[in-house]
């Protein structure tokens, strides 16, 4: 557990970067610090491992005041990941990862064995071990950064925009893997980002800071979206927060309709009873995309892959309302495709039906439009 007790930081030039910050980052959870540029996120994070010393207040890790511990010793027990990974260009990947164990005097062979384990754990090809950082892509370097932070198995991890310098697809991947890793490891993590979506996706709790280093709100992601405390937080979490809040609302069973399908490679079906749109599945009954029967020319006799509309997202049975609504909205036929956890087709649902479900959850939904609504 990391506890901030009225922590302030005034830089020598008079800038107040952090002002009377009070909060607790509970053990085994991800606490995200989020806020606009210059609001003191990095400063707050770096005060935890004493890269920056607070000018007032104190920070406790498991009830131990960090200023009472030797700085280098303290840092060796805290994993730290930054935006551009900050790998050592003159060390191989495996030696980068083993940096902290080396510092702690761990036997070289043992340190490397552990590093190797972590390299694989963060999803890197073991062949990369002998390479140098410059021979890896940005996303791969970032994984090495995470592995290096984990090498000495520190209970606490500090992460400063670790995923913001990679492209959106890789970022998504890294976030997913990070969550998976965390569910195994249960570290106490303070994670800094300026991206509210990332904060909501990763955080067990989210601290929104405003410029000047004030804590505006500390809440769970769902609460943040449904009950922003003021205009600033409301504005920061975004206008489509009502929609995004649906991420945190699951419905039991979606009652789905049977959907007529055609298998990929089969002859194009015909018949007056068919809708303009028909769902195409593969041999294993996994949805592939939609086929528009009206558009087909006379030469199109079999259902081939290049005829498909693949824009629709899929809703998983037991997933969130956001997923279900998005599946409907993104489907060219207007019918959202619902699949089982093994990706096979269950049936379809319409937007109206999802909205009815949302309506039924009115008590929760009411607060979305209630207290936090922007007055414009």
């Amino acid at each position: 557990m990391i506890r901030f007790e009225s922590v302030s930081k005034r830089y020598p030039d008079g800038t107040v970067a952090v002002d009377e910050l009070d909060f607790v980052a509970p053990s085994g959870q991800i606490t995200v610090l989020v806020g606009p540029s210059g609001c003191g996120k990095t400063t707050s994070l770096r005060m935890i491992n004493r890269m920056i010393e607070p000018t007032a207040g104190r920070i406790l890790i498991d009830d131990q005041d960090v200023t009472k511990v030797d700085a280098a010793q303290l840092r060796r027990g805290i994993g730290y990941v930054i935006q551009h990974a900050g790998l050592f260009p003159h060390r191989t990947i495996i030696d980068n990862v083993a940096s902290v164990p080396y510092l702690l005097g761990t036997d070289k062979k043992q340190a490397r064995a552990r590093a190797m384990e972590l390299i694989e754990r963060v999803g890197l090809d073991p062949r990369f071990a002998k390479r140098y950082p410059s021979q890896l892509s940005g996303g791969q370097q970032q994984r090495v950064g995470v592995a290096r932070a984990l090498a000495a198995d520190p209970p606490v991890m500090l992460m400063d925009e670790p995923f913001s310098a990679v492209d959106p697809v890789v970022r998504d991947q890294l976030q997913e893997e990070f969550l998976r890793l965390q569910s195994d490891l249960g570290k106490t993590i303070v994670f800094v980002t300026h991206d509210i979506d990332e904060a909501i996706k990763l955080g067990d709790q989210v601290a929104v800071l405003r410029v000047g280093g004030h804590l505006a709100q500390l809440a769970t992601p769902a609460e943040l979206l449904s009950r922003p405390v003021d205009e600033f937080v409301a504005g920061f979490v975004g206008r489509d927060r009502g929609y995004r809040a649906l991420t945190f609302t699951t419905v039991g069973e979606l009652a789905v309709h049977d959907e007529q399908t055609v298998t990929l490679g089969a002859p194009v079906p015909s018949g007056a009873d068919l809708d303009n749109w028909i769902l195409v599945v593969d041999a294993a009954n996994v949805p592939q995309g939609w086929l528009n029967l009206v558009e087909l020319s006379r030469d199109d006799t079999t259902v081939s892959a290049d005829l498909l509309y693949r824009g629709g997202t899929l809703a998983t049975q037991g997933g969130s309302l956001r997923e279900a609504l998005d599946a409907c909205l993104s489907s060219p036929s207007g019918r959202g495709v619902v699949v089982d956890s093994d990706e096979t087709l269950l049936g379809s649902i319409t937007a109206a039906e999802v909205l009815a479900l949302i309506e039924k959850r009115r008590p929760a939904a009411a607060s979305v439009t209630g207290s936090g609504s922007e007055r414009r």
Partner: protein
Amino acid sequence: MTALATSSSSSPLHFWGYFMDHRSTDLSWLWSHTWLSVVPVVIGLLVALPLGWLARRYRFVYPPLISLTGLIYTIPSIALFVLIPPLFGLKSLDPKQVPIALTLYSIALLVRVVADGLASVSEDTVQAATAIGFKPLGRFFRVELPIAVPVITAGLRVALVANVSIVAVSGTIGMSNLGQLFTLGFQNSTNGPYYPPIVLGIVLCVLLALVLDRIVIILNILLTPWRKAVRS
């Protein structure tokens, strides 16, 4: 000097014959020339390391330090040779004055090189090193300095080659090194130019410079296996 008269030809190409005739003297000059070129650079580097570190650590030190060392470098070598004995309490033409002057030059050149080399280490890397628990000294020797090696060795190459030529200048004021060959050449050019010692001096200086340069290049390659990875 009488031995010189036995060299028959004054053709520039006769330098090899000249060398064979005066092998032991020439080799001892080459040897001292080598030491005079190398040792001041090594000492200069050892002094420049902490100074360069200071200039990096306390940014306000950098501008005055670089101006001062730049100033030293603009003093002509002959003038510096003359200035050293009174400043260091030596007799004029004391054999120590040349290494002292060369060490000053080397420091002047290398302080900047070391500071710029350390500046070439990315801020992210330095921050990361601090954050994972390196102490300042360990960080300097195990992270910053190794990464600065390519910049520092580039500076060493310049310093070494410059020293080879400055040492030769000191030979013309009577220090025993390859510079003596130029003096001899002029002294024996009473009736028509006498080229062999001059050409020999040039050839040996160039060879020495090339060999020293090559050694530093190899040293750099050995110290920076990671750079090869960058290039490939």
